[in-house]
């Protein structure tokens, strides 16, 4: 008699307390870059359920305190939980009422510890996070993965963005980008992701954080180009090909 255990039984190695085995509702890439006045970050508003593009109004970027902006890809419920942890952190910081406030470097460090410690317990928060901000003129942009890998850079991305957006950014990013150039560069990346990432949807937001504060754009869609002559009759010379 075959003894098959469903993955949610209390017997066997999967039973010990809690361990996230797989994500359910997921967000795709986040792309961010440093520019003249601060940080620009872009993410689409999709929440995928497996291969179904189920939710199309998910905000995957949120302000953290006065100085930081957090973008997340991966499991949305875990992102919502991280926001709650950060709420507590910021509240605690505010309660000191000492004129000091947590900057992006500190929030990034907190997130790194959070993600790494969960990874060590074999119960990760299934997210890749992008944390950007500016405090006292100092710009900061970092990333943390679900296994606790963390680093900072002039431009970062998660998921597919690493493969499609980073190469573009490596070529075209430079110090002191203007706001317009930064937005156009991010849109160039997001368009490529729209063409090539199955879980991307054409509804995105771009968030900006500067010394003045954080603003997040209204949701909008990008135009796409399909008018290459090669697209019109690709199988003309080779019937049956694709």
């Amino acid at each position, binding site marked *: 008699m075959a003894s098959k255990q*469903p*993955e949610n039984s209390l017997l066997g190695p999967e039973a010990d307390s809690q361990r996230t085995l797989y994500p359910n509702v997921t967000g795709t890439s986040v792309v961010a870059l440093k520019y003249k006045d601060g940080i620009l970050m872009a993410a689409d508003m999709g929440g995928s359920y497996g291969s179904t593009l189920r*939710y199309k*109004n998910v905000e995957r970027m949120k302000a953290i305190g006065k100085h930081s902006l957090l973008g997340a890809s991966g499991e949305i419920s875990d992102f919502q939980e991280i926001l709650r942890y950060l709420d507590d952190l910021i509240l605690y910081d505010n309660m000191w009422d000492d004129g000091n406030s947590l900057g992006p470097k500190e929030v990034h460090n907190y997130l790194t510890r959070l993600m790494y410690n969960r990874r060590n317990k074999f119960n990760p928060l299934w997210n890749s996070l992008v944390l950007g901000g500016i405090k006292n003129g100092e710009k900061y942009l970092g990333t943390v993965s679900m296994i606790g890998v963390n680093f900072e850079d002039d431009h970062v991305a998660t998921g597919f963005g690493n493969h499609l957006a980073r190469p573009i950014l490596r070529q075209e990013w430079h110090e002191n980008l203007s706001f317009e150039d930064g937005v156009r560069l991010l849109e160039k990346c997001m368009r490529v992701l729209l063409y090539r990432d199955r879980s991307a949807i054409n509804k995105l937001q771009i968030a900006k954080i500067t010394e003045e504060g954080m603003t997040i754009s209204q949701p909008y869609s990008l135009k796409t180009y399909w008018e290459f002559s090669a697209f019109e009759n690709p199988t003309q010379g080779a019937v049956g090909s694709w």
Partner: protein
Amino acid sequence: MDLNMDLNAPHSMGTTIIGVTYNGGVVLGADSRTSTGMYVANRASDKITQLTDNVYVCRSGSAADSQLVSDYVRYFLHQHTIQLGQPATVKVAANLIRLLSYNNKNMLETGLIVGGWDKYEGGKIYGIPLGGTLIEQPFAIGGSGSSYLYGFFDQAWKEGMTKDEAEQLVVKAVSLAIARDGASGGVVRTVVINSEGVTRNFYPGDKLQLWHEELEPQNSLLDILSSPSPEPMNI
């Protein structure tokens, strides 16, 4: 049962559940089939469960898991209402569901739609799929039957419907899902919640509109045969 889960294929859940906001409240709808494997264990289940006077939840997925979660939340909300001294808000009810769903995500298999009316925010619908994500939506669909409704709602949904328009939309949608989803069937139940209160409605299978390749139900073949032959041509 396939233990090697393809990461791109979430568990399919028997049922069709829907929650829709309209101008003044919400309409919740569901089919009535509970299946164990291929057998229909209950053909007249009630998947729209009360949490408080003004908040209901549509249950899908494991019958046991969804019943337990809603029982616990009903219990907590009852205490909360006593402490608060006034009706609980839909948001609080939805967040309690989320807490249980999220914190037990490895053990539960239930997708829920919370809908209700409170004096602060009016009619609200919250979807809580597998994993415990909480997402407020103008309308929500869930269960295995919902796969067949994404296109339908993309086309048919509009903001600011009247109560009757919303209810007709829900009944039509559940009926369409029942037509194509083997795990959904039976009757269509709806619950309308607004400032005036709660109304339960019942649409038996034979009263629903017929879809593609569905035929008018008859008592017997004999009734069809014995109907008078058409008149021959009179030339």
